[in-house]
């Protein structure tokens, strides 16, 4: 079924309709449309897989699944290395050295009480630290050879009203290290604010239990639709998310063990990237999810097996 003649905006709806048609015809017992479609598809496409949406199951076929890479973007800027902070400090000192003298006459006009208070608080500038032959170069109470230190007079807190006290209250920045960091709470979204956190989910299995959530693409569904369904089925409705794109960001495939090969021989998972802005992931009953964790890229290695990590690593971002 070629969709070249269908405008882009309507293609996903077309696919849904085709699925509906296939389902209804199958119910009636008429398999002609379904099988014809799959036959044409399998001739066009390479013979590596026979399974597609609406196809009849085959032992060599792969189950097509849509996966979800759900991430929480960094809340704070990246940590500065010691060199970076030293460099920024150096640059700010240079800037202070080159800054123009504070125009006191403009902010504290001559003859006012404020000016008197301001002048009283300023450090004494006498140009003492100079060589014998240097004349003091002081203009507007500023030694021109060095940076200026402007000291603001202390506010008369008693005389101020509550409102102005609030306005002039010192801003205390909040800590970048949260409680979740201290307690190492891997289920919290407030941990590691400077890094991207990815959702890992644990299935009731002994081997390869931890992975990104994934679900089979059913008849008439697109990857994006499956991912949306998967998100609600796995984690509930109370999550404000945004699908970055319909295009898959990663691909992973594996074969089932011989004993598990009933309907399909293996699985092909196409992962879509999504971002969470608010809410909580709550594992739902019936989803098969035993545990979950919000981890950074380097922490994923501790949870997930090697082959999976090799597949997924390049799709994730380090920061």
């Amino acid at each position, binding site marked *: 079924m070629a969709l070249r003649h269908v405008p882009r905006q309507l293609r996903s709806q077309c696919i849904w309709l085709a699925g509906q048609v296939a389902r209804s015809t199958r119910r009636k017992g008429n398999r002609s449309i379904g099988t014809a479609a799959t036959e044409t598809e399998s001739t066009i496409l390479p013979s590596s897989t026979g399974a597609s949406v609406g196809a009849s199951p085959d032992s060599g076929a792969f189950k097509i699944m849509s996966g979800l890479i759900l991430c929480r973007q960094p809340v*704070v800027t990246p940590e500065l290395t010691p060199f970076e902070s030293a460099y920024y400090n150096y640059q700010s000192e240079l800037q202070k050295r080159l800054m123009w003298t504070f125009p006191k006459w403009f902010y504290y006009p001559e003859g006012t009480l404020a000016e008197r208070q301001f002048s009283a608080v300023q450090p004494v500038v006498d140009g003492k630290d100079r060589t014998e032959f240097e004349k003091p170069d002081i*203009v507007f109470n500023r030694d021109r050879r060095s940076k200026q230190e402007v000291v603001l007079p202390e506010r008369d807190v008693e005389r101020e009203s509550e409102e102005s006290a609030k306005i002039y209250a010192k801003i205390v920045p909040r800590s970048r290290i949260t409680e979740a960091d201290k307690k190492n709470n891997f289920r919290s*979204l407030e941990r590691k604010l400077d890094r991207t956190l990815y959702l890992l989910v644990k299935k009731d299995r002994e081997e390869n239990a931890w992975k990104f959530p994934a679900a089979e693409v059913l008849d008439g569904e697109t990857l994006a639709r499956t*991912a949306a369904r998967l998100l609600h089925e796995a984690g509930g409705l*109370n999550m404000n998310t945004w699908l970055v*794109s319909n295009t898959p960001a990663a691909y992973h495939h594996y074969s089932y063990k011989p004993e598990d090969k009933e309907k399909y021989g293996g699985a092909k998972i196409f*992962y879509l990237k999504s971002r969470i802005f608010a809410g*909580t992931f709550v594992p739902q009953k019936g989803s098969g999810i035993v545990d979950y964790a919000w981890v950074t890229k380097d922490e994923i290695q501790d949870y997930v097996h090697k082959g999976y990590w090799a597949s997924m690593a390049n799709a994730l971002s380090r920061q």
Partner: protein
Amino acid sequence: MIVAQGFFRHILRPRTPSIFANSSGFGDASSAFAPSTTVPQTTIDVKNCTGTLMFTRGKRSRGGGETQQKQKMVNMLSLISPRRKQPRRIKLSYEDLLRHRTVHRAWQLVVRTKRQERRLELQKQYFKMKHACDELRKTSQILYQSAMEKPSPIRFPMEYRIPTVTPPRRIWNATWKPPAEEKKRKTL
């Protein structure tokens, strides 16, 4: 603001007695050469002025609204000009210059390394995506075509937030619930 050519000349040039033909002279001739640590120099008496008016920054001039406005303008202009506010030019010794250059080159190196790392990461992500799309195309043409649909123009959600240096008061809204109007959501 009506400003004559001569207006700027009076303010921005260094004050010496012989230049200004129209001015009525300085109130205090010695003050022009006085050391800068003293209180700002007095102006000439405005009412005695015959030609253009003389203004100094930071003074309160007597007279009508016009002269006051001009005074305010002088104050503002004095803020913009570097006159007597610029510190000395930095002259580094040879060793200091070497130190500065070393720091600068080290910084350039760090920035370059970061840029290259970021480029490499993006490249890896792109090829991962390309590989996934190629595999999808082999697997299912329909799914591939639906995956290639892109919204035009791309819309970002309102909740999109840029990282800040320190976190907000409420770091994460854990109790978010979907609004009641949205019954069925087509996509994520």
